[in-house]
């Protein structure tokens, strides 16, 4: 019992910390602020993809598609419905409306996740990756041809709602919910599907259902991240959601270590900051970025936080090695 309370206390402290910190964000330089927001959005994206690629062991390359659905849906709601609903100045009402729009974006993304998941999750490995890749492209092409959200010109004039507080409250909520799920007996079913599908079936686990559920939850979170993204930039275009974006998220999950929450958070932070730091070397930027990734994967293929790290054992081992040498 003590343990369950501890989790809740950590969760509430996290939320409180975010709210306190949000008081001081006005003084931050706009460039740094933007990076901070992107880090938050990328953490949500990486942690949500972790549900599919890390915990459930499926390979999805369509995460930008779910993000796009969430971004466009919530943006269309705030852009078209917002002006009719919000009369006068009611900041609380406005924030609630934004929250609803984000949830709506998440829900539609989740629904799309269900639509994609049901037929395609009979496929495995490379085949699934290709189907999800195709799905992501379909979403992008649809957005390119929908004129009421700007089509290929992009969707501009989206109200600016995404604040530090919104972004990081969602970061904490997503991490908390995912961790809850993965620690539960229900959640162990996802890991079982990843480790051995035949044995999971023999344990009474409906593997197809678990995979679809992973897709739906993951798509929901990605949709929320998309909504935050749209209401931060205030201008989105289909090119924001190419499969390169999907790959960027996959790289975060793999680099951090499949199925590791700490890893996903860490990788999202590093991979958002790194390209910015490398701006100083101008044209060599992407070369160095790629080289760093290659070196990391060669030296630690399971990802930075991948595999089980048992700190106490590691300590013992180190001591033993010292003695023997």
């Amino acid at each position, binding site marked *: *019992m003590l343990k*369950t309370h501890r*989790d*809740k206390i950590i969760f509430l402290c996290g939320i409180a910390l975010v709210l306190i910190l949000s008081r001081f964000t006005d003084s931050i330089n706009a460039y740094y602020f933007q990076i901070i927001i992107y880090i938050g959005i990328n953490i949500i994206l990486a942690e949500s993809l972790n549900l599919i690629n890390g915990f459930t062991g499926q390979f999805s390359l369509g995460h930008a598609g779910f993000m796009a659905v969430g971004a466009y849906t919530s943006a269309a709601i705030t852009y078209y419905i917002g002006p009719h609903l919000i009369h006068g100045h009611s900041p609380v009402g406005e924030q609630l409306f934004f929250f609803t729009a984000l949830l709506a974006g998440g829900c539609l993304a989740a629904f799309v996740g269900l639509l994609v998941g049901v037929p395609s999750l009979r496929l495995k490995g490379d085949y699934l990756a290709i189907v999800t890749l195709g799905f992501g492209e379909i979403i992008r092409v649809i957005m390119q041809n929908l004129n009421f959200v700007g089509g290929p010109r992009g969707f501009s004039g989206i109200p600016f709602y995404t604040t530090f507080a919104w972004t990081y409250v969602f970061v904490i909520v997503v991490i908390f*919910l995912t961790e*809850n*799920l993965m620690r*539960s*007996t*229900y*959640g*162990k*079913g996802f*890991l*079982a599907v*990843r*480790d*051995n599908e*035949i*044995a*999971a*079936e*023999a*344990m*009474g*686990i*409906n*593997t197809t259902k678990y995979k679809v*559920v992973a897709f739906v*939850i993951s798509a929901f979170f990605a949709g929320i991240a998309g909504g935050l993204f749209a209401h931060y930039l205030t201008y989105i275009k289909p090119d924001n959601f190419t499969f390169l974006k999907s790959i960027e998220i996959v790289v975060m999950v793999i680099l951090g270590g499949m199925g590791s929450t700490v890893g996903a958070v860490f990788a999202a932070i590093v991979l958002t900051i790194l390209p910015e730091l490398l701006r100083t070397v101008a044209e060599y930027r992407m070369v160095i970025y790629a080289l760093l990734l290659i070196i990391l994967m060669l030296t630690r293929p399971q990802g930075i936080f991948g595999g*089980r790290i048992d700190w106490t054992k590691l300590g013992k081992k180190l001591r033993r090695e010292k003695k023997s040498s």
Partner: protein
Amino acid sequence: MSSPLLELRGCTIRFGGLTAVSNLSQSIESGELVGMIGPNGAGKTTVFNIITGVYKPTDGNVLFQGKSITNLQPYQITKAGIARTFQNIRLFQSMSVLDNVRVAFNKNLRTKLFSAIAHMPAQAQEEEDVLEESMKMLQMFDLTSVKDERSGSLPYGAQRRVEIVRALATKPRLLLLDEPAAGMNPTEKVDLMQLIKRIRDALNISILLIEHDMKFVMGICERIFVLDYGEKIAEGSPERIQSDPRVIEAYLGDQE
């Protein structure tokens, strides 16, 4: 007369031109400990795969507690009350021993996805019950000391035991064991024999097992049937099987 716990009615399965199991009829009563033996390639594991829904029989029917389970998916059959272990161990290797057992409780969970995500009080209570029951089962198999080890890192004999615990944790009425003693040393085999008997008595379940070690099979099974080239060639008590000329021929070849 009540129907047997499990009944195979004229089950045949063909893979292309090969008839792996041919017209097999076999029943298992409640609480029985039955052995299935036969030379390599006789179709024993295929029979398991038919019972557990991995393969659909080309012909025939499988009935469990009087109801047909022929067209159910493997997970539905487990839910109905049949659990199995695998010939080549299939543990959830990256997970701890305890978590391997916890997975098995999934099919009986009352609190579902949303309470798990939100960590509702009812779910927290159920988690504690699951944990307690898992620990009880691990204790029965003498695995408490390794509960936090990665299951893939355990020695072979312990991995086999974990597989059996995991299967039992689904609370089956019928347990299928595919070569449970394979790769064990003689002492481990004796321990396992006693353990299997004890489980059967304590949990009042039926067990069907495949095993090549004759001392093992003859030592614990009350009834044995023999497969050769997919056909049942003999059935009866261990003594009768040992002296059956067709069985001796199947194993040792013709006397000439």
